[in-house]
């Protein structure tokens, strides 16, 4: 599904290479995790895949089901089925959560040549998805993420994911700022979306999220490259010994 080959990226504003040749293939139905120390390039990878400004691709490729992601605008990538759950979801005062979600869903449907969803259908859809995430009517009515706690913001990200039904979901440090209960709620939301036709790329510092969202494959990223790939046991190894051992072993 997601195919990244020798991806090299530098910051536009300074001559600083962040990704130095990333190779990664995520198959449909699978959950891949990327772990790594701060500054290893994990978040950069998520931003470059979703099309954020400020990065320059200096080499390599990234495709979603054969389509060149790097040539697309961010909204085109979304319509093609890519979703990034933000580490820091953005507050948008004055724009209702429902208005935002409906605009997003219908923009994607329009871009794919599908009919727009009516207000009534949409309301039903959102209420059903929101219930599972314990998001109440008041949260849906409030402006996007304004006044939300850290946990509410992350649950809102998962709600968007559930409503938009992307095929390729990238979760950027979704566990940051979550207490144990919120982590369980968010993980349950993600697990409920696990499906044959959908893939996940879960970026995290810590193994604990992976207790809840069990990955099929774990990658270790360091200094702009994937340096080690293994099964779920690799995450446990990181948890036990930290990154230093793995990095030392590779050096």
């Amino acid at each position, binding site marked *: 599904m997601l195919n990244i080959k020798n991806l090299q990226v530098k910051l536009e504003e300074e001559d600083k290479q962040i990704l130095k040749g990333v190779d990664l293939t995520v198959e449909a139905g699978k959950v891949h995790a990327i772990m790594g120390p701060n500054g290893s390039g994990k978040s950069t990878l998520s931003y470059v895949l*979703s*099309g*954020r*400004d400020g990065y320059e691709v200096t080499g390599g490729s990234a495709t979603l089901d054969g389509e060149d992601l790097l040539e697309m*605008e*961010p*909204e085109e*990538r*979304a*319509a093609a089925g890519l*979703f*990034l759950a*933000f580490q820091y*979801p*953005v507050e*948008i*005062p*004055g*724009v209702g959560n429902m*208005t*935002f979600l409906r*605009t*997003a*869903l219908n*923009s*994607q449907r329009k*871009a794919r040549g599908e009919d727009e969803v009516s207000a009534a259908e949409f309301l039903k859809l959102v209420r059903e998805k929101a219930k599972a995430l314990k998001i109440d009517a008041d949260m849906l009515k409030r*402006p996007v993420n304004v006044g939300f706690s850290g946990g509410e913001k992350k649950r809102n990200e998962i709600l*968007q994911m559930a409503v*938009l039904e992307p095929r390729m979901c990238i979760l950027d440090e979704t566990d940051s700022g979550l207490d144990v209960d919120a982590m369980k709620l968010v993980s349950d939301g993600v697990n409920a979306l696990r499906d044959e036709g959908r893939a996940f790329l879960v970026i995290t510092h810590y193994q604990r999220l992976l207790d809840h969202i069990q990955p099929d494959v774990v990658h270790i990223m360091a200094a702009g490259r994937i340096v080690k790939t293994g099964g779920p046991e690799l995450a446990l190894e990181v948890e036990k010994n930290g990154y230093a051992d793995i990095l030392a072993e590779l050096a």
Partner: protein
Amino acid sequence: MAAPMRKDEARVAATEARLAALDLPKGGFTAHARANALARLREMGLPGRRDEYWKFTDPAVLNATEAAKAALFDPKESQLFGGVDCVKLVFVDGVFDAEVSDDPVLAGVEIARLAEAGASDIHWAQELYGALEAKGQSPVVRPFAALNTAAATDGVLIRATAQAAKPVHLVYRHESEASDAILHHCVKIEPGAELTLLETGPAAARFNKVMEVDVAAGGRFHHVRAQGRDHERRAITHIFARVAEEASFKSFTLTVNGQMTRNECVIEIAGDDAIAHVAGAALGDGSYGRFHHDDTIFVTHDAERCESRQVFKKVLKNGAVGVFQGKILVKPGAQKTDGYQISQSLLLDEDSQFLAKPELEIYADDVKCSHGSTTGAIDETALFYLRSRGVGKQDATALLVLSFLADAIAEIEDETLAAEIVERLEAWLQRRKK
């Protein structure tokens, strides 16, 4: 001493030329007020660019003896607030048109036409006409308001003695290219009474309007206006309000297009525990020749435990210019004052400009006053967030513009009226999608 003499001579000449071109109404109950206003105007003279409060806005088009033409504009959209049950009073190029207006009948509200009130003895209006304007000339002079009091040819006199069942809606049509309208309204809200006043439309090629609003104890006045979309129109408007104890005054203005608009609002909070909110949202696109929009606000706190808010937002593109001059004056003894002022601009490109002069002057020691002014572009992170969810760049920008304006729109208490304003904003944004 020679230079200042010459400047004064020029000012006197400009003022006299402007007056000579006007047909000043005579007689009637306003005669005395008009004569006084004329004397005030001659004393202060018309403004020039060197005057402190005209540095950012060139008054030339307002000073000109003749109004330049403004092309008529068909907005091809339904009447704003058309769905709101109200008493509609229509002015065409500054002249009241009874034919297309509703009967001015509303329980608990007296409505009279200024041009016809002449000889009759409307006691309250005689006391109010020109009085708040005259008081509002200090400490900052407002020559176009004095000119208005002296020269206004029409307007409405509205007195609410109870809670009005529905709003009064003043509709200003612009049907003659070179019209030069001067309207003066007086509004009196008696103790405990309540009225909503709506104003919509461009009014004329050049429009000078004064509205004096006297809100007595416990009275409530709501004002929502939308200035017409005609690209070439010019307008200078003044609101002079006096707010008595436990009374409330709330005013919101939407400005979309217009070559030049200056909206002044002078509020005196005269009674304890009163509230005065004034807000504005302006959207300007300079690609239609010119867009210059100026909000000049002066709120005086002269009583205890009063609250005032000034919330002004401007969205500017293609060389549009926005000006905000706002002042909060807290007089000695006006303790426990809660004064707030915010002016913000969202610049959609690098060609547009926002000029702000926020002022606080406080002579009481137990008050809470804050003011802020910001200028910025669209937040790139928020834009990316919306786009990453599939919302196209133009739609995402439109959502962020509405987000930016939200605080100003929130000042409209009535949800139906607020929704109609939001609809017009959305339409403006849709029209400007590339």
